[in-house]
């Protein structure tokens, strides 16, 4: 017998509940800060000011957000098809190889606006191919995608380490990374946009990839809700049996969804590699793939939600760095704890407060929650 949940108005569903979850996460994080003997209110002020207070902070926040938008979209596309892609990390990492090949080959001869499109294609292609293998194994052999994608993260890491300490490393260099790209593979910064609003920026890595990320968010929305392919993916994601009934090929839909997911993950590499570091270095993804899972969950698998969640995590990264600098008692690990709390409350426990809020709404205005048929046979 299911407990019939009344429906909430959309603004409460998508606005109020995430906000409450977030607030609770920060309150609990506040206690953690208190525990190490610092003032949580001051910590909160430092965090927010560090992320949004100055132009440079904003630029850094958006730079991190760019990365998380890609990985969040990647996880969301797979999730809409009922697939849990934990391999975003590895797909992004190995995509660095595609970018390296394009950039190292053409950076001396072509301008950035020609290298960039080629690098986009290369990163998407390599990411997609890396996702193709687990997808094929899932579709044809029933190997669970969670297991295979996570294993492929390790394989990707090993391959990249081998390449970056061997074939891709310039002779004589001590650092495990490619040579630095020339101007032909350096993406223009977007800091001037923030400077338009009067803020001053010293140096920040926000670059045109941010615009690509927003474009991709729009395209993902279009794909999921406005195309036949997206319709088929969602059908399979909600009910594989219904998909079978509707004549949707399981193999084709799993492979297609995973390759799109992999391509989005791959494009993430553009941001740090071409926009910031101008080389491919070891471990340049540094966990952004896993943050993507949290971003996708928190954004309710919707591109708008993902962009907002990505900005939030960008803020935690940027503001967190400031916090660790300003308050020595709060170490880098503490920041990770705070991020973990946000993931816990906003992702894993997202339904914790829902019944109470629904009861509240129902008692104030029964109309607003709408009528829902009581489920359960003969109820």
């Amino acid at each position: 017998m299911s407990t019939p949940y009344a429906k909430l108005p959309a603004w409460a569903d998508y606005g109020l509940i995430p906000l409450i979850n977030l607030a609770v996460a920060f309150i609990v994080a506040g206690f953690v800060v208190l525990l190490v003997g610092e003032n949580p209110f001051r910590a909160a002020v430092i965090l927010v000011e560090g992320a949004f207070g100055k132009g440079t902070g904003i630029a850094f926040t958006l730079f991190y957000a760019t990365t998380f938008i890609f990985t969040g979209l990647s996880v969301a596309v797979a999730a809409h098809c009922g697939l849990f892609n934990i391999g975003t990390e590895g797909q992004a990492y190995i995509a660095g190889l595609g970018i390296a090949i394009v950039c190292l080959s053409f950076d001396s001869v072509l301008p950035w606006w020609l290298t960039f499109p080629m690098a986009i294609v290369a990163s998407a292609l390599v990411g997609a191919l890396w996702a193709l293998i687990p997808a094929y194994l899932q579709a044809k052999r029933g190997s669970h995608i969670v297991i295979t994608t996570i294993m492929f993260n390790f394989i990707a890491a090993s391959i990249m380490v081998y390449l970056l300490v061997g074939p891709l490393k310039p002779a004589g260099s001590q650092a495990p990374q490619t040579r630095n790209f020339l101007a032909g593979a350096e993406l223009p910064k977007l800091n001037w946009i923030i400077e338009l609003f009067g803020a001053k920026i010293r140096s920040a890595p926000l670059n045109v990839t941010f615009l690509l990320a927003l474009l991709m968010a729009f395209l993902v929305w279009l794909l999921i809700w406005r195309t036949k392919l997206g319709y088929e993916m969602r059908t399979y994601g909600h009910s594989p049996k219904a998909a079978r009934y509707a004549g949707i090929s399981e193999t084709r839909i799993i492979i297609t969804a995973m390759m799109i997911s992999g391509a989005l993950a791959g494009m993430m590499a553009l941001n740090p590699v071409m926009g910031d570091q101008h080389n491919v270095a070891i471990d340049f993804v540094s966990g952004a793939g896993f943050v993507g899972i949290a971003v996708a969950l928190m954004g309710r698998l919707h591109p708008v939600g993902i962009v907002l969640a990505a900005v939030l995590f960008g803020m935690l990264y940027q503001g967190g760095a400031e916090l660790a600098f300003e308050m020595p008692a709060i170490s880098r690990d503490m920041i990770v704890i705070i991020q973990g709390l946000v993931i816990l409350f906003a992702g894993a426990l997202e339904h914790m407060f829902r019944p109470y809020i629904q009861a509240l709404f129902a008692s104030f205005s029964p109309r607003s929650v709408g009528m829902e048929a009581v489920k359960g046979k003969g109820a």
Partner: protein
Amino acid sequence: MAQAAIELIGINKSFGAVRANRDINLEIARGTIHGIVGENGAGKSTLMSILYGFYQADSGEIRVGGKPASIKTPNDAIALGIGMVHQHFMLVDNFSVLENIILGAESDALLKSSIAKARSELDRLEREYGLEVDPDAIIEELPVGLQQRVEILKALYRGAEILILDEPTGVLTPAEADHLFRILKQLKEQGKTVVLITHKLREIMAITDNVSVMRQGTMVATRETSKTTVGELAELMVGRRVLLRVEKGEAEAGAVKLAVKNLTVKDSRGVTMVDDISFDLRAGEIVGIAGVAGNGQSELLEAISGIRHAVSGSVMLDGKPIDLTGAADPGELRDRGLAHVPEDRHHVGLVLAFEENENSILGYHDDPRYLKGPFLNVDAIMADAKDKIEKYDIRPGNPRLKTANFSGGNQQKIVLAREMEQDPGVLIVGQPTRGVDVGAIEFIHKRLIAMRDQGKAVLVVSVELDEIRSLSDRILVMFAGRIVGERGPEATEGELGLLMAGVERQEAAL
């Protein structure tokens, strides 16, 4: 004359904004069989769940044996002598009968002494009520009818004086159901009180002393069974007059549309579910497949509609074979004019999380009418959905509403509208009215007959014998994967019941 075993006074229960029970008053006399009927969603199960302690009433009073009772958990109910036999049995499949019966009622820390005590007690109960079951049999090896008996024994073992049975005959053959009724009568004679929840009016008429009718959360009437009629009860349930039997003319069967030959299908465990079946389906007729659930009907439907692979045999659609060995693509079959209303609309026929309009194209989403290149033609889909909503009277008439929020009957109409409006040559329907309320049943039956009269070939699989008899021009009975008999629509229920129970050799003499 009889003292009340249970009195419910002014019971109210809401879930959010939905009032499942409003101001219910009910008196159940001791030593009687009391029926509670109502459509799906009328609030029957909610009311019984309150009585059994699954839910708490928002307001109102429960009296058991004349004394006010506070029932907060099922344990409170059991302590007051109330036992419940659930629609879906709550038994541990790989335990023995005895182990299941003492489960949760072990009297000692040492299982051995509990078992010894239970065995003698069980023996007494079995003799007293005619409920023979081998106490050492393993549950999963028992037929459903006997499993149900174990459920009843379980309640009696816990000292139940009042037994609540929730839709007890849904899984039984007619013969098993008759046996259950004999047991219930015996329980009544021994002074027990029985509450029977059902939507089958025939059962109410057969064994109850009193009957209460629920509609939309309210108790609309209580009648002495001997002083009411099926027609009156149906009218009370729906709130208007209902045709119980669809009127239809003679079938004019035409050319063979679907020819099934020597079809054999296995399930995922490798058990043969459909065993060498052959039959023809002609244009302009309805063929009904009767049988107790689990005798291969589902697998037969799935094989014909391309969802499940067949092991051997052939199916010809309009004289051309359907590929059964590889994955016959359901989409391709749709293009060839075979529409399928699946048995399980919740997981197969619909995506409950989708909006209504999205479900109204499921399976036909390749149709260029609904597309603009790779994009969905949202305007066309919405217009089409609105059109179907109007034609099939789907309520509420909002194509943007999530499908899960429609009632069972309206969900089924969404599926039927989608499949019928494609104007297929062959329509295959599994359980056309399962979980559908009486008003919608009438509508669905009329639509199916209209399809037949337009010269379509219709195959109906249903576990509801009444439905099969009232719809079909020919009835095939399936038992253990085989077709064990073919009868005309004039076949009696007893005759079909025997066939369904696998009594093959006996001819229609009964």
